[in-house]
């Protein structure tokens, strides 16, 4: 990437989002625009993916709703992202938890808690 573009992007990067890892359970608050109204919607789930660098960096959160798996991808630097809370740290041995898509039932989205001794 061009150095000038990197500098321009660095000016608008957000630093208030806490650092989290793959497998952590998050509660993400983001603004939803419905017509002219705006409201904040929370979304709770497991981080399965963190992608890209720079201004287009994104993360994907997965949860099971009424038996259907739902994944939402958020941009780290989006002004619509209001808050990210880390509910639980998870132990993941992979960079992308795509295997969760194939899990059914109680095993889906179950990530073991991180052992505090190895923090």
């Amino acid at each position, binding site marked *: 990437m*061009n150095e*000038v*573009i990197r500098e*321009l992007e660095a000016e*608008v990067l957000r630093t208030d989002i806490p650092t989290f890892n793959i497998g952590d359970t998050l509660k993400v608050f983001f*603004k939803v*625009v419905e017509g002219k109204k705006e409201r904040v919607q929370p979304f709770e789930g497991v981080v399965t993916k963190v992608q890209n660098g720079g*201004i287009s960096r994104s993360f994907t959160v997965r949860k099971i709703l009424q038996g259907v798996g739902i994944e939402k991808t958020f*941009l780290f630097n989006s*002004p619509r992202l209001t808050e990210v809370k880390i509910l639980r740290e998870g132990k993941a041995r992979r960079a992308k938890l795509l295997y969760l898509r194939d899990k059914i039932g109680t095993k889906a989205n179950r990530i073991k808690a991180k052992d505090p001794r190895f923090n």
Partner: protein
Amino acid sequence: MKEINKGLVTKKLGMSQVFNADGEVVQVTVLQALENVIVQKKLADKDGYQALQVGVNETKEVKLIKPVIGQFKDVKRFFKKLIELRLTKIDQLNIGDNLNVTIFDENEKVNVSGVTKGKGFTGCVKRHNFTIGPISHGSKHHRRGGSNGAGTGQGKVWKGQKMPGHDGHMNVTVKNLKVVKVLAERNIIMVKGAVPGPVGQVVKVYN
């Protein structure tokens, strides 16, 4: 006809994205204006057409040959490259003036022209979007162009028949790109969408 009274020679730095006031992502191409110094004004009654000749990439006099040095006798500055901008109004601009990004406003529509990436010698499928033939079942008509025209009655191939050949590396203008941001202190202009050419390419921006 639309009046073209703004023009600028820029360098394509690459693509990025910005968030607009609504928090939506806008894909932008970052264009950095080169130092545009007016070297010569081409006039309709003298040269047959009207244009601004701007010099970019300043260099030293000793690095140029005499016939080229003669072109810079009015500005007393020397450039590696001379580019013409065909504008309808050039009365207020003088030789030696500098053009910069402040001539453009945000949310303005601009046209960007440049030379596209060269693709080399390509087949019909890539160059003219021909349909490919069957890959298997004994077919040998995979990516061929097919028939070139009629038989001996016609006795020739029509001009303009689409065939394999050199693709890319041609002048292309992308019209009506919105100016998303103008950064005067860095001499940078961001336009929504893609512009022709590779990163580092010199492109011209018109209103």
